[in-house]
């Protein structure tokens, strides 16, 4: 089974309507080393458990939002539109 994702604007919709944009990462600050930058660009936690992740309601209202989903069950625990200074603000 695929699963439903609750868009903060449109409510529960099939996952095929959305674009997945990966786990929420934190951009390193301006004086980061090359290793910190490559770690940010390529390396991922890829957790088996609850993951904070970006989604985009591609065929709907076009909103970008953050979901908390258990990657072992695909159960979506909550979705929210993060505050501009929130989810991925630089360290």
């Amino acid at each position, binding site marked *: 089974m695929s699963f439903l994702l609750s868009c903060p604007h449109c409510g529960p919709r*099939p996952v095929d309507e959305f674009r997945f944009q990966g786990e929420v990462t934190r951009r390193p600050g301006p004086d980061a080393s090359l290793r910190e930058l490559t770690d940010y660009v390529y390396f991922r936690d*890829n957790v088996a458990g609850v993951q904070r992740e970006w989604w985009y309601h591609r065929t709907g209202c076009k909103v970008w939002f953050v979901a908390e989903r258990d990657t072992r*069950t695909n159960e979506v625990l909550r979705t929210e539109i993060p505050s501009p200074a929130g989810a991925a603000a630089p360290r």
Partner: protein
Amino acid sequence: MKDIFRVRRMWRPRSELKKRYDVVIVGGGSHGLATAYYLAKNHGITNVAVLEQSYIGSGAAGRNTTIIRSNYRTPEGAEFYKRSVELYERLSGELDFNLMFSQHGHLTLAHTDSSLRVMQERAEVNQILDIDSRVVYPEEIARLCPQLDLSDTPTWPIMGALYHAPGGIIRHDAVVWGLARGADRAGAELHQNTTVTGIETDGGRVTAVQTNRGRVEADVFISATAGWSTLVCGMAGVRLPITTHILQAFVTEPVKPFLDVIIVSAQMHVYVSQTDRGEFLIGAEIEPYTTYKSTGTFSFLEYSARHVLELFPQLERLKVLRAWTGLCDLSPDYSPILGATELENFHLSAGWGTYGFKAAPIVGTTLAELVASGKTPTLIAPFALERFHSDTLVSELAAAAVSH
């Protein structure tokens, strides 16, 4: 005579884990087993344990779509897979086990000018490396695969194809069992239902793994755990540039021989071959979101079936027999992550995405060489984990993302 009715075990059940081995391999799939087999065959290292959390070949090794090919885009990738195909060609004889490898050819379809251009590039890279690979046009495609709908009726009419004559299909379970038997006969121990629960490190080295059946020490540890790589390597503190996704496939009911070549369309996100049993084996692209839940989706069946029917309208009335999923460990550049890690005696085969099975024998030989010599073989040097920190990626996006 009555000997033919005797049930012969492919490999011996092992009761207890020893306290210590020379090499411990985590993951009893095609890569782990091939490494154990070549450690014994090429280097005489037989004090080896393969730890498998479920049964041998239960993961990607038993779930892939069995396609073997070497027409990759980068010189590094193409050379690597060329060697793998050469090893596969000899493997049935070597293992004394019929792997049913049939090299009937592989056609990657182009439906746009830009994909034709990429195929020209791939063909040139391949030809320089002496890989049989060339671009063909509808007239020749009609001879190679007259069953295909080459008219302008489909949504994306076929403009050309990359034809790779040595491409073929193999019986994947037989590869797993043959390698497992070969490793077992040489002295390696295969431990099923043995889950690694922790990895102990000390001063930049792995000292032991903890399992549900006790603690095991070794000189060298190898992780060959595909979709679970992030979790296994995480226990050792090794962070990976990998995300885990599901890949799905299905087979139809078996029918008479109809299709001998493998047909791939990246544009339509589909690949199709007919197995020796007569089933049409159809696969597509990974699901875009990361997940560890191996459950298929109806939307996959729906769009794969639709796209296959665009290519082969004759299959309209075939029924779907079964569908399944497997976990894939995707790397950012669609090339594997192979060889040494920052831990001195902890080596890795990961990041295979959807194409790890094609590489099993060459992974086995090169990892075995790395263990025996302590040096990274030049063939796999471009695939080191360190490339993501030095920003020297090996992009196989064009040749590996959907094209099986």
